[in-house]
């Protein structure tokens, strides 16, 4: 067993002549929340997709439990317990909560001992219980998911990933489309997941969301890593500075200070 449940060692990803990722090294310790910070175009999406098994790295190594892996599809990553919750959440709005929860992995039973059918009662009960564990009371697990709020949907997607054996949860901008209160709920959710021993990679461009829940932070800028910092070695302001490009931020601040109306 390695100390790191998941690691990228000097990973690069090329699309034709475009170098999307350059020598990224990132190590996720078991049970930590690792925040991946970067502005738009920093390469966050490519990195997520590489972790999720959508892309294969052009160079470098991808390790799970210390062993090198090559994923040919997202389902292979899933089999290793690496689950990705994308921004679109992979939910179908017209389907019920229970059916969404088990979409693609329907619980089955035999009708009259012969015909394989979906165990809808089990699905409904499980979906309701798992969401309740996350602090969301579902009014009716048979209601369409379109009736839920953005935060509740995020919660469902996370609860689903955990239920299906995720050890590593990759969250792609989970707070991007949410209001203040709902973002707070999602942050609580991340904290709860960590308490249950699940390692989390939290992708965001919002340092204010990342800092309170994160244990370590990797910063991305234009396809390169600016380094990984643990919480005790870096302050929130330092992170903010690095994200905005340090010196540039200073200049910008001083320019703004000079503005008078």
């Amino acid at each position, binding site marked *: 067993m390695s100390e790191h449940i998941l690691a990228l060692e000097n990973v690069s990803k090329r699309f034709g002549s475009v170098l999307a990722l350059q020598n990224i090294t990132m190590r996720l310790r078991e049970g930590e929340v690792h925040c991946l910070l970067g502005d738009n175009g920093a390469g966050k999406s490519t990195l997520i997709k590489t972790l999720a098994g959508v892309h294969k790295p052009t160079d470098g190594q991808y390790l799970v439990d210390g062993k090198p892996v090559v994923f040919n599809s*997202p*389902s292979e990553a*899933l089999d290793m317990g690496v689950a990705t919750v*994308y921004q*679109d*959440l*992979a*939910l*179908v*709005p*017209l*389907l*019920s909560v*229970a*059916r969404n929860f*088990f*979409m*693609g*992995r*329907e619980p*089955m039973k035999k*009708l009259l001992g012969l015909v*394989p*059918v*979906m165990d*809808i*009662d089990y699905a*409904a*009960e499980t979906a*309701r*219980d798992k969401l*309740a564990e996350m602090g969301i*009371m579902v*009014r*009716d*697990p*048979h*209601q*369409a998911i*379109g*009736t*839920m*709020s953005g935060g509740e949907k995020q919660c469902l997607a996370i609860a689903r990933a955990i239920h299906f054996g995720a050890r590593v949860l990759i969250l792609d901008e989970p707070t991007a489309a949410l209001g203040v209160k709902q973002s707070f709920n999602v942050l609580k959710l991340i904290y709860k997941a960590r308490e249950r021993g699940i390692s989390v990679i939290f992708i965001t461009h919002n340092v204010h969301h990342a800092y309170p829940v994160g244990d370590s932070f990797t910063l991305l800028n234009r396809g390169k890593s600016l380094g990984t910092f643990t919480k005790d070695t870096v302050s929130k302001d330092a992170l903010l500075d690095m994200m905005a490009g340090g010196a540039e931020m200073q200049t910008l601040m001083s320019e703004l200070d000079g503005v008078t109306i």
Partner: protein
Amino acid sequence: MTALKSSLASPGMNPPPPPGASSKPVAAADERVGTTSWVKRFFGRPEFASISGAVLVFAFFVITAGDSGMFNLDGVVNWMQVASYLGIIAIGACLLMIAGEFDLSIGSMIGFAGMMIAIPTIYFHWPLWAAIVFAFAGSMALGWLNGYIVIKTRLPSFIVTLAFLFILRGLTLALSIMFANRTIVSGVGDLAAQDWLASLLFHGNVATGLFQWMGAHGWIAVLDDGSPLVKGVPKVIAWWLVLAAGAAFVLSRTRFGNWMFAVGGDANAAKNVGVPVRKVKISLFVFTAFCACLFATLQVCDVGSAAADRGMQKEFEAIIAAVIGGALLTGGYGSVVGACFGALIFGVVQIGITYTNINSDWFRVFLGVMLLIAVLFNNFVRSRVTEAR
């Protein structure tokens, strides 16, 4: 119809278990939960429009043509037969629509499949059963091709199948002229009565013994020679009911049914959680082609001939029935039971209108209006379903 009724309770969203069924305290914790009556729940179901439409249509004809013989046994068999033919293809169209795709080539497929049965039988002297097997294999292969092109090219199925609407109709005409030098190939009727496969599955009636018995007891009308006026339930009706019950069951209760809703609702989301989107879509194109071929086989065996213009515009009627039945054009929502009631409305109106004093030219006007009302209503239902209750 009992099978249909029991499956009413499932597609899309299922009614929650009865209050006593769950002992989990968390379930009852939210004080914001109002109890919804079954009436309200029925309002929110996809088949609501078509069932209430069917009730209205029945009421209309009971009032205007109640004593005309429309609701005698022979009258009922008459409009049920029309509804059954349409119902069979409406089931295929409905499932495909739920999975988010269209098939506009259904009507042309009916004509083509009919010729695939009649020409080999009459001109190449194949046994009828072999020709029927050939037609089913051929149609389903074409259905697969339709689906494969749609999936591979990612073109809208509307365009791909529109192309097949013309290709197949043109082929039907060209090939029937080439092989038979005519556009109507007849003489299959007698063969159908003798052929083991056709007489077993496609030709004639079921439950003839029961009708004989009922006639002998004077419960139903009989002819002068003592045989019942209606000899049995035409096989097309039996096929429709069996197919409807099967499709409704698969859609609401099985894993494959869940996948249909999932790929139609959001193909990308479905793919991301491991649903085999291509497989689901292609197999439904094949199923739709199967339904079209079943329509053609039953028609050829019943009428005794195939014609190059058979099935003209049936694709639209099938889609209309599915839409009246609550299917959304955007996919992910719909009901087999609803589509069947949509087909029933068709049958009742098309035949019923001849029993009244109303000129039958008004049939199409009625259909168009019905479609429009159904779409508006379904829009309303969808917004109810996806908005917070």
